[in-house]
């Protein structure tokens, strides 16, 4: 049994079948990529996984518990973190404050009225945040406003914010979209390193085949809302069906 089980998920938007009979079983500790041409339903699937969309039928179980109908913050508290296509960070706050917020959320839950407490007194959390920042090589930028970071750094910060919460499952929505080659490679290295050091299960939605093949242990190909094949990267590369549906279409 995997950490995340998607069974018989269907989602319609008007006349469009966005997801049709999606079944996925994501094993614990793996890096699972979901690929597919534009409009294949990748983002819809991700939104179902984080509770933003409720499917018409089907179930999504995380460690045996349904995630459907829960708020994003409840899903995060269950241990699922999400990295967005465009980095979602607290851009008016300093890098360090950006790191502190997830630490507080992890410790104190969805809400706590700590209006008269001092941040300086939270030595453990500060240490944790600083440690995470140095792990992603951003310790020297801790006082910068997050909006003034480069795009690559914003992405690193966002990932660090997710990782400091020690999630069981990390969802990444096109983590390298719009990045320069060097930044893309940095991100790949970062993700590989994270995976090796923490054994976090990752689900990656990605366009860039270079990224997918350098990261994923399993790949699911989605086409027109349904999974076409699921296999190891080596097998996917030469799979005739994939070539036809995905690479063929991309070339046309």
């Amino acid at each position: 049994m995997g950490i995340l089980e998607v069974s018989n998920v269907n989602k319609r938007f008007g006349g469009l079948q966005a997801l049709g009979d999606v079944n996925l079983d994501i094993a614990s500790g793996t890096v699972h990529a979901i690929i597919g041409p534009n409009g294949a339903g990748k983002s819809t699937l991700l939104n179902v996984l984080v509770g933003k969309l409720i499917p018409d039928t089907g179930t999504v179980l995380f460690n045996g518990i349904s995630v459907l109908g829960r708020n994003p913050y409840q899903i995060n508290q269950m241990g699922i973190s999400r990295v967005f296509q465009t980095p979602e960070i607290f851009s008016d706050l300093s890098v360090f404050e950006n790191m502190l917020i997830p630490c507080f959320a992890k410790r104190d839950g969805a809400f706590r009225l700590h209006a008269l407490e001092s941040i300086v007194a939270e030595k453990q959390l500060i240490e944790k945040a600083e440690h995470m920042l140095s792990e992603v090589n951003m310790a020297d930028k801790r006082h910068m406003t997050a909006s003034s970071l480069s795009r690559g750094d914003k992405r690193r910060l966002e990932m660090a914010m997710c990782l400091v919460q020690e999630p069981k499952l990390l969802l990444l929505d096109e983590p390298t979209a719009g990045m320069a080659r060097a930044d893309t490679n940095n991100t790949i290295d970062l993700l590989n390193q994270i995976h090796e050091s923490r054994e976090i299960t990752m689900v990656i939605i990605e366009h860039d085949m270079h990224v997918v093949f350098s990261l994923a242990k399993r790949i699911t190909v989605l086409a027109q809302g349904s999974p076409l094949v699921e296999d190891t990267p080596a097998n996917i590369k030469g799979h005739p069906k994939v070539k036809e549906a995905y690479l063929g279409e991309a070339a046309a």
Partner: protein
Amino acid sequence: MLGLSKKDTSFLIAVIFLTLATPILLQPFPEGSALAQFNAGYPDLMQRFAIYGIFAIGFNILFGLTGYLSFGHAAFLGVGSYSVVWMYKLLSYNVVPGLILAIIMSGLFALLIGYISLRRSGIYFSILTLAFAQMSFNLAYSVLTPLTNGETGLQVYTDDPQVLMDAASPSSPHFFGIVMNESSKIDVGGWLFTFNNGYYFCAIIAIVVFYLSMRIFRSPFGIMLRAIKTNQTRMNYTGLNPRPYTLAAFVISGMYAGLAGGLLASMDPLAGAERMQWTASGEVVLMTILGGAGTLMGPILGAGFIKYFENIFSKINDTVLHGWFSALPDGLEDAIVFLFHPFIGKGWHLTLGLLFMLVVIFLPGGLIEGGTRIWNSVTGRNRKKKQDQGDHHPKPAAHVN
């Protein structure tokens, strides 16, 4: 000290000093001189500085930190005033029970309005709060007249129970015998300083609530509120529920407003519905933006500025102007007075409006930003900063190993 950093502590001490010395600092011109009318050191005005300062500090916790623009805060001001006057009527002229009731009532009222209004954000939230405040105003003005005495305003009558009153108690608002409208006047070589009990009562409360707001700004809760302002999506996906945070901020700022309203009635034992009107809600928005939203000191500065204009500029009339320019030839004098006429007296709103426009256009950070810019150009910190930035060229992103 007191859970504040060194820098904040010295800031707080400076604020305490300035607040306590206000009766002296606002009296820069000797009595009887031509400029004496610019003196602001009289009790009524100083009380307003402190009270509206409190109002704006509270508003800033909501608007400055979370970015939720409430257009209905005057409702809480009114609730606070009515609470205090009711306590006068039922118990006695001691302000303490009234102020406690004012904070509780406005807190409950804010909980109700906030719970409903905070379902929406942005302009919809603003309109919802505005609608609630106008409803409260109209209720107070013409519907709930047994409770508010309608357009006459709520006041204390001789046949009110006042169960805690005895022959020895003062017959105007007091704090355990310290009567609010009593002052001691000191005449120092032409300068007249008025030390008013009411002002010091408000000032000490203002210092306490300023300290509290400082703690809130520096607390984890304060960071969460600022996080709400910049990115609610990330907030949600970080496992935080923004709703209770905004509601808590709304209630806290409502309680500040209630306290301010209560203090208004503590200085002058009256409460009228016009205190809840939307212009009063708009005023606190102006104060906060003029001073600098999201800064600690800005709202207080803004409040002081607007109240100063309201009370000092509005008093300059044509006769005063003629007096100033009497040295000029008659035709020129009349022309200048004619030119200035729309900006003074009843036209002080025009002056304030122009000033507000200038600040918003050229100093989006408010008067605080202006002050910082002046300070930087005096100390040359700007130049230093620019050199600093030169060193911060984007470095090639380091490889993670």
